[in-house]
């Protein structure tokens, strides 16, 4: 059987707090941001208490030590996703990662870049962070944005993949797992089609890296982005991973100190990756915190985390299916499906559903989840979303199900 996860809960100070109605917090909003174990909080704090100095710049001991732990964090995060150290770029968030790569790919000085008439492929279930940067890039260079549709069950519709990914395609930007539906996309088919036409694949791994083992070597994508704050790490840190050969060909998107090879008033040349992409004094304490998070979760084991969340998801979906007037939005079979469960309650607006749950200490997210086009496609004004991480447990799912079953009565909506 799987590990007993109950002992991990204690590591997360916030999970002890009381919220509305005097209830202990039942945090089911990890899809938005995860909670942090004390060991991560302390790693960040202790960086400030003992090693804080500007990395790569100082001639003094503390600066040396700061550089050591910062670069150590990079190696550690690289190991976590099966990457080489020099391929890992620290950003402030997945959003920044995706925007940066879009700027780089749009820069005519990059050896690999977009031209007018080229095509960018996304999907109907992208988070705004993996949609709008590409809309903007398309607009800037005169490229065309096209997209995969989704099926009624909330799977990616690959039926027109051969038309969508064609000779004009330069970029395919796709989510690894939908933050609304929980759908995990069939990546192998997509990377194969993209590479066959010489396009690069950018993976939005915000909802995958925190929840199951991701190895960039096996995925065969070209770029990957995720946020530290969803993988038990601090806010203010994200990762952009890219294949070394490609990073080498790209102009950076952010300019300033520590990323140059030489500078005159007229112009500048760049250092090598990852330095080239990290302008300015970096978010050092946050990198150190993320490194601690990655250690913490690796110690437990990503496969076990995935299994644990799988079990909870299964329990939740079958429970919801048994409540009348409740619709699960997204795949209900567990194949290629992660721990994000959207649902609606007939006659009750998601915002009101969320408010009701909040009264019982249950924290969920409601609304369009930054995936507005997907909501339109599904003809929904929004959903209520429960999402898991390793600190959740069966009893919390039971409380959620029990509370959901009473919502229609409270709002006096007829059966």
């Amino acid at each position, binding site marked *: 059987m799987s590990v007993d996860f109950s002992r991990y809960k204690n590591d997360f100070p916030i999970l002890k707090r009381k919220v*509305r*109605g005097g209830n202990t917090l039942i945090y089911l909003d990890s899809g938005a941001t995860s909670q942090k174990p004390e060991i991560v909080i302390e790693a960040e704090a202790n960086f400030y208490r003992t090693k804080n100095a500007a990395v790569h710049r100082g001639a003094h001991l503390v600066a040396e030590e700061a550089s050591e732990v910062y670069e150590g964090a990079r190696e550690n995060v690289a190991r976590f996703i099966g990457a080489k150290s020099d391929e890992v770029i620290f950003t402030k968030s997945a959003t920044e990662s995706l925007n940066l790569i879009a700027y780089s790919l749009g820069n005519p000085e990059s050896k690999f870049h977009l031209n007018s008439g080229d095509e960018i492929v996304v999907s109907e279930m992208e988070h705004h962070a993996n949609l709008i940067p590409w809309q903007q890039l398309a607009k800037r260079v005169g490229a065309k944005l096209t997209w995969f549709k989704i099926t009624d069950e909330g799977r990616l519709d690959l039926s027109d993949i051969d038309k969508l990914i064609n000779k004009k395609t330069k970029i395919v930007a796709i989510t690894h797992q939908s933050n609304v539906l929980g759908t995990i996309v069939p990546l192998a088919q997509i990377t194969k089609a993209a590479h066959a036409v010489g396009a690069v694949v950018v993976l939005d791994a915000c909802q995958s890296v925190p929840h199951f083992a991701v190895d960039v070597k096996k995925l065969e994508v070209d770029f990957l982005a995720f946020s530290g704050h969803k993988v038990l790490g601090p806010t203010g840190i994200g990762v952009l991973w890219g294949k070394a050969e490609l990073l080498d060909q790209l102009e950076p998107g952010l300019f300033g100190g520590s990323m140059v090879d030489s500078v005159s008033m007229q112009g500048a040349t760049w250092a090598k990756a990852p330095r080239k992409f990290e302008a300015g004094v970096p978010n050092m304490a946050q990198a150190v915190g993320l490194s601690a998070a990655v250690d913490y979760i690796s110690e437990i084991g990503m496969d076990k985390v995935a299994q644990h969340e799988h079990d909870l998801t299964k329990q939740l979906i079958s429970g919801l299916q048994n409540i009348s007037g409740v619709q699960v939005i997204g795949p209900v079979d567990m194949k290629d499906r992660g721990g994000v469960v959207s649902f609606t309650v007939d006659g*009750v*607006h*998601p*915002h*009101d559903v969320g*408010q*009701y749950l909040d*009264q019982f200490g249950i924290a969920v997210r*409601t*609304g*369009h989840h930054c995936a*507005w086009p997907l*909501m339109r496609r599904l003809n929904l*004004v*929004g959903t209520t979303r429960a999402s898991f991480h390793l600190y959740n447990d069966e009893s919390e799912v039971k409380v959620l199900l029990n509370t959901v079953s009473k919502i229609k009565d*409270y*709002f*006096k909506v007829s059966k």
Partner: protein
Amino acid sequence: MELDSLYQEVILDHYRSPHHKGLSADKDIQVHHNNPSCGDEITLNLIMDGMLVKDISWDGVGCSISMASASVMSDLLIAKRYEEATKILGAFIELMQSKGQSQGDEVMLEDGVAFAGVSKFPARIKCALLGWMAFKDAATQVIK
């Protein structure tokens, strides 16, 4: 429980049977407002007769608070003079910002006092204000 102070019976009634919902054929102006963080949307038609609010009609999607509030707003402001409507609007905004410290003026706000509890739920204040802000925007445009 605390939640009952938010979801007053009056509010749920208005939510289930909203007043003045359904856009009029005629209008002096139409405005569209939304709340991007939760996706609530409202379209509002306003007809003024000089400084008199002659008709308000609206359509929209949103939570019980936003829809009920638009319903109550229409009831309250139709047939009022602009100046009076502005006073009522001001009183409603003040109630929303009262952090649970005010009951609201029942003479002026009528069913609107049912929203007093919203002021204790900061994330819901913008829901309650959606329709009111649409009216304010529309009226300002017609008047000037």
